[in-house]
C-alpha cells in the first residue's frame, strides 16, 4: 500500500468569529483514503474542534456534501489520491448560512423542498429484463434525490436569488408530475410556473454536473418547461 502525506486546507468558522479562516493539516493517506476519512483523522488526532457532518459513508444519505478543490462532492466517496493535488482545499457548500466550519444550515432548503411532497419510493426503471420475485408485481426503489444540497451550491441562480425554488425542489416536482403516487401534480405545476420557479433557471446545468445521484435536475427543469410550454400552446390553439 502506497502512503503519501497530503495537506488539507480546511475552511474554519465558529459563531462569533469576525471572519472565517483556513487551517492546514497534514494527513497520511493511502490509495483508499477518502476526504471524509481524512477529516475524521484530523478531528481524531489533530483538532477535535473541527465540525463536519457525516452519516452513511457510502453516498446514500447526502449528509457529507461539501466543496473539495472548489467542486461540490460527497466527501465519503471522494478519493484523496485521485484528486491529484498536493494540497486539498475543503470548504462548506455555498448559498447556505454557515453554522460551524463545514456544516451549513439546510433548514431553508428543507422548508422549500418539503413542499414538493416527493414520495420516498418510486417505480424502478432498472433491471427491466430481470425476473421479478414471486408475489412482487414490479421493482421499486428509493427516489434518487439524497437532498445533499450539492446542486444548490453549484447553481448560479440560487446564489443570486434566494427566492428561487432551486434545482432540487424543481426536480422533485417533476418526479411527482411523472409519478404522482397520490400527490397533486397540477397544483405543483402551478407552483413552479412562476418567476421563482422553473422559468428562473438559466440553463447553466451545473446542478446536473454535480449531482451524485443521477437526479439530473437540469433535465427535470427543462422537462417542466416543456410540459408547461405544451400546455400554453395547446391553450392558445384551443382558444383560437
Amino acid at each position: 500500500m502506497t502512503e503519501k502525506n497530503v495537506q488539507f486546507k480546511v475552511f474554519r468558522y465558529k459563531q462569533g468569529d469576525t471572519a472565517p479562516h483556513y487551517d492546514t493539516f497534514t494527513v497520511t493517506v493511502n490509495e483508499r483514503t477518502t476526504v471524509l476519512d481524512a477529516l475524521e483523522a484530523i478531528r481524531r488526532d489533530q483538532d477535535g474542534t473541527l465540525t463536519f457532518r457525516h452519516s452513511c459513508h457510502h453516498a446514500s444519505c447526502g449528509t457529507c456534501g461539501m466543496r473539495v478543490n472548489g467542486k461540490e462532492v460527497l466527501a465519503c466517496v471522494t478519493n484523496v489520491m485521485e484528486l491529484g493535488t498536493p494540497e486539498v482545499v475543503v470548504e462548506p457548500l455555498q448559498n447556505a448560512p454557515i453554522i460551524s466550519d463545514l456544516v451549513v444550515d439546510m433548514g431553508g432548503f428543507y422548508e422549500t423542498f418539503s413542499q414538493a411532497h416527493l414520495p420516498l419510493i418510486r417505480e424502478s426503471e432498472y433491471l427491466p429484463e430481470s425476473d421479478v420475485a414471486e408475489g412482487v408485481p414490479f421493482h421499486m426503489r428509493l427516489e434518487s434525490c439524497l437532498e445533499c444540497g450539492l446542486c444548490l451550491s453549484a447553481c448560479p441562480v440560487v446564489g443570486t436569488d434566494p427566492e428561487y425554488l432551486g434545482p432540487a425542489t424543481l426536480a422533485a416536482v417533476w418526479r411527482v408530475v411523472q409519478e404522482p403516487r397520490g400527490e397533486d401534480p397540477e397544483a405543483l405545476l402551478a407552483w413552479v410556473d412562476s418567476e421563482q420557479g422553473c422559468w428562473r433557471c438559466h440553463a447553466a446545468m451545473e446542478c446536473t454536473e454535480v449531482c451524485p445521484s443521477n437526479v439530473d435536475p437540469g433535465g427535470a427543469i427543462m422537462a417542466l418547461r416543456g410540459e408547461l410550454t405544451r400546455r400554453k400552446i395547446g391553450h392558445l390553439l384551443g382558444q383560437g
Partner: protein
Amino acid sequence: MLDTTRFNTRRRQRRPGAWLHLKGRHVGAWAFALNRLAGLGLVLYLILHLFVLSLLAKGPRAWDDFVALAKSPLILPLDVILLAGILYHGLNGVRIALIGVGIGVRQHKTMFWTLMVIVAVLLAVGTWGFITV
C-alpha cells in the same frame, strides 16, 4: 462576506455575482456567463448604434464623415469583436431556446461545441468579408 453579527438561519448567503464565479464550473455555466456578457455588450452596441444613426438626421455631411471614419482599418478589430458577440449570442441562444423547452437537454454540451465550430467558421467568413469589401 459572511454576516457574523446577525446569524439568521433562514437567510441564504447572497451572492449577486455568483454567475461570474466560474472556477470549478463546467461548460454550461461558462456558456451562460458568456451569453450574458455578449448580450450586455450588444446592448451597449445597440445604444451606440442608435446614437450614431442620429447623425443621419443631421444631414449628408455629418453622416458621410462618420462613414469615412467607420471604414478606417482601426475599426476592423472592433467589427470582428462585434460579429463574434453576435454569432456567439445568437447561436448559443438557439441552444438555450431548444434545451429550454426540453429538446436535446442530454446533448447540451455536444450542441455547444458544435455551435462554437459554426461560430468560428462564420466569424472567419465575416472577417474576410470585412477585409475584402
